[in-house]
């Protein structure tokens, strides 16, 4: 057999003078890159640049470099496309990857800027004045009825009965990431952080481990095409239920959890045999049209006696607006839109990188469509897909999202280095793995604290942004595209986003 033609992506550099041969790097590497043969020796071909070794070397004697090996420069045949062909020529398989789309498509968030107040409307100082981020997830009626009553505190009372609403203290929730794709400590940390921050985590399609039961009031449970872990108890242990149709990283295809990651715990939680690949089908086999979806929505509502919101998650695709409108009319309480930069534990690279549309466009199109039809109040709109900071969050809300969900950012908060190898199950950081020796590296307490801190930091920044905009409630930013301006966008893009160009 000839040696592989695939060149190493990274080079592991070791300073053998500084190295004390403590072998900590060998222990830390989840990918088996390092070995001890008289001194530390690296198999460069296995390195994914997860930086675990470099972070934990007490001497700073190890670091990772991009392999400078040069293909002859070619603007069309990039090193990535050449290497992909080598891989497929050698394996004949579908190339897999983890995390979100990393291609250099236009990032519309980076072409939008926010407004601020000067003189005529004063900015508001969030350090001195109340600043409100509270958001309610759930379907709202178009209007309310009140009745006249004689009480000591007021003469009017609410006559309309609202459908179930979930109170969020910040408009940021955690995105769906399954137990199986990520470790139990990671799942627990997300649930605890959501609980401590007054927001929600989302189980993803992997079921709900019993250790998360205490956090039920902060959990969205997912019902995906594989129905993993779905039973009455699962539905009862949730604040809200989400039917997952699509995922931003892999629109139109199902879930992929390699058997390597299906250990005893995962197998029990998912209700599948240990060691088997958990492949959820591309479509739900009971949903082939919108009326089928409506049936499932109401089946879940019936099963939970109309006590919790039931929503639908779709990938942002070309006709997301029409689909979202159908979902709203099918009885959903929320629509969860996942843009093409949304992450994944495993997806075919070709799908991740080439299918779907930017979340910015999808939010704008869906919000517009629901307003044109006069049904915007009927659903809460959750947006997700690669939000990097509170600026992205604010812009998404201004475009029309009620709530944003963060997945990748939450993983990064727990230590993820975006090496994109989640599907291998070798995550050296103990996040996207089920190998016991790796899982135990993630301290759920510490991870919880880091997640709480992240939410707190972003929420404080959101308050600063609201204050600068001269408003003291997040609902005054929501859908207020007047407070956005576009830079470097063409007329059509501006029109779709519903924003004016900067300077106007």
């Amino acid at each position, binding site marked *: 057999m000839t040696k592989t033609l695939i060149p190493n992506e990274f080079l592991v550099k070791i300073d053998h003078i500084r190295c004390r041969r403590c072998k900590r790097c060998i222990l830390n590497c989840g990918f088996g890159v390092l070995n001890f043969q008289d001194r530390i020796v690296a198999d460069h071909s296995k390195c994914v640049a997860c930086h675990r070794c470099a972070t934990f070397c007490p001497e700073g004697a190890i670091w990772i470099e991009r392999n400078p090996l040069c293909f002859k420069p070619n603007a069309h045949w990039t090193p990535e496309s050449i290497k992909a062909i080598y891989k497929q020529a050698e394996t004949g398989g579908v190339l897999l990857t983890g995390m979100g789309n990393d291609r250099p498509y236009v990032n519309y968030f980076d072409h939008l800027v926010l407004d601020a107040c000067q003189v005529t409307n004063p900015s508001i100082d969030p350090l001195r004045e109340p600043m409100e981020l509270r958001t309610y997830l759930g379907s709202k009626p178009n*209007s309310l009825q009140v009745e006249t009553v004689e009480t000591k505190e*007021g003469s009017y009372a609410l006559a309309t009965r609202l459908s179930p609403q979930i109170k969020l203290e910040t408009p940021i929730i955690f995105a769906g990431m399954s137990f199986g794709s990520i470790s139990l400590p990671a799942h627990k940390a997300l649930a605890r952080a959501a609980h401590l921050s007054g927001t929600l985590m989302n189980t993803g399609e992997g079921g709900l481990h019993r250790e998360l039961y205490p956090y039920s009031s902060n959990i969205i449970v997912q019902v995906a095409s594989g129905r993993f872990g779905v039973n009455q108890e699962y539905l009862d242990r949730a604040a809200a239920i989400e039917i997952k149709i699509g995922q931003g990283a892999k629109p139109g295809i199902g879930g992929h959890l390699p058997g390597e990651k299906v250990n005893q715990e995962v197998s029990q939680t998912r209700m599948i045999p240990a060691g088997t690949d958990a492949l959820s089908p591309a479509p739900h086999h009971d949903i082939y049209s919108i009326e089928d979806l409506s049936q499932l929505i109401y089946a879940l509502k019936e099963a939970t006696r109309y006590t919790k919101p039931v929503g639908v998650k779709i990938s942002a695709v070309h006709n997301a607006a029409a689909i979202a409108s159908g979902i709203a009319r099918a009885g959903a309480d929320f629509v969860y839109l996942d843009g093409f930069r949304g992450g994944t534990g495993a997806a075919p690279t070709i799908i991740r990188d080439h299918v779907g549309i930017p979340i910015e466009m999808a939010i704008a199109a869906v919000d517009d469509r629901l307003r*044109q039809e006069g049904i915007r109040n009927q659903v809460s709109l959750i947006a997700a897909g690669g939000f990097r900071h509170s600026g992205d969050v604010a812009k998404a809300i201004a475009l029309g999202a009620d709530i944003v969900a963060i997945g990748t950012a939450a993983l990064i908060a727990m230590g993820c280095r975006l090496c994109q190898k989640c599907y291998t199950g070798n995550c050296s950081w103990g996040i996207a793995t089920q190998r016991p020796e790796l899982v135990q590296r993630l301290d759920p307490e510490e991870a919880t604290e880091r997640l709480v801190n992240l939410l707190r930091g972003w929420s404080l920044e959101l308050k600063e942004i609201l204050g600068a905009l001269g408003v003291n409630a997040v609902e*005054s930013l929501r859908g207020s595209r*007047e407070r956005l301006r576009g830079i470097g966008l063409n007329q059509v893009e501006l029109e779709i986003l519903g924003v004016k160009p900067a300077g106007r």
Partner: protein
Amino acid sequence: MKNFPRIPSGCSIVGIFNKQAKRFSGADILRAIRVMHDRSNGLGGGFAGYGIYPEYKDCYTFHLMYEGEASQHETEHFLEKHFIIERSEPIPTRPHPRISDVPILWRYFLRVKPRRVESFRGREGTASASSPQFCQVLEETTGEHCDERDFVVEQVILINRCINGAFVASSGKNMGVFKGVGYPEDIGEFYRIEEYEGYLWTGHGRFPTNTPGWWGGAHPFTILDWSVVHNGEISSYGINKRYLEMFGYHCTLQTDTEVIAYLFDLLHRRHGLPLQVACLALAPPFWKDLDGNAGAKGELAGALRQVYGSALLNGPFSIVVGYTGGVIGLTDRIKLRPLVCGERDNFLYLASEECAIREVCPAPDRVWAVKAGEPVIGQLEEGVQP
């Protein structure tokens, strides 16, 4: 003219209301606004008077501003199609040394042609009047709601949106708006408002921060009998406007104040929320003040916030809102603009500054500063007909 960017502004506002519907001359409101001269800069002033057309009190009175005869011709053609015009005449004015570039000012006393309302089918909850196709044909749309007032609202929005150079200053019954570019005291003299008698007057002096100098941009802003004078800037204008579009209100004037008039019309007239409750939606209490208030009021305020969050008026404002049955004074929930109230006998006074109240009522029984976000509502006493 209608395509100017939004114009932020500072201002003076004032309202005088008699609960017995006793009519008094517009001279009072003129004196009250005059003492607040420094709060405006000569780029806008205006007044709304209620009860001023008793002989036509059942007619929708349209005050129109035209930039030229072509606009007038087109508008009158449009009006004739939809309304019976009981009377049509220029709005009386007197030449004034400090008022120039006057548009054609005309008023019409109108009744809706009955069959127009029957065939009116503006779809509830959709933005029928805002679709571009609608503009081209200027025809009735199709839909379900048949309220005569909905029909009038749609015609007003159509004229403002689609007829070039025509602008409806007011469209209510037995009320009218007199406004233009200039200091308010000059505008009042120009319109001879001392010659009218009404039971409710509101006034406005404007300090815009740029200079479009167009008459339609002056306050009050109106729809039907709602009129709003406003000091401040609605920082939530962007979402308030988009929210209103869902219900067929198209904001044509690019001025934040416009949304306030439409929101009162939507929340009170169309959704049936009592005024007190509508104000609770527009300037809601903070969550921290609602949490722990499990009573009926807390529940109502919380639900209003959830359902009407897009109607929340955020940013600095104090407003005086007039309508046939009375007057409302309201400020934003952290009171970034002033509003003072006074009472004497059957009169209720509202103004940016106390001096304006004392100018017309030197010894009020009571004077108080309005609390942030808490409405002051003056209503005609029971049984009193305007």
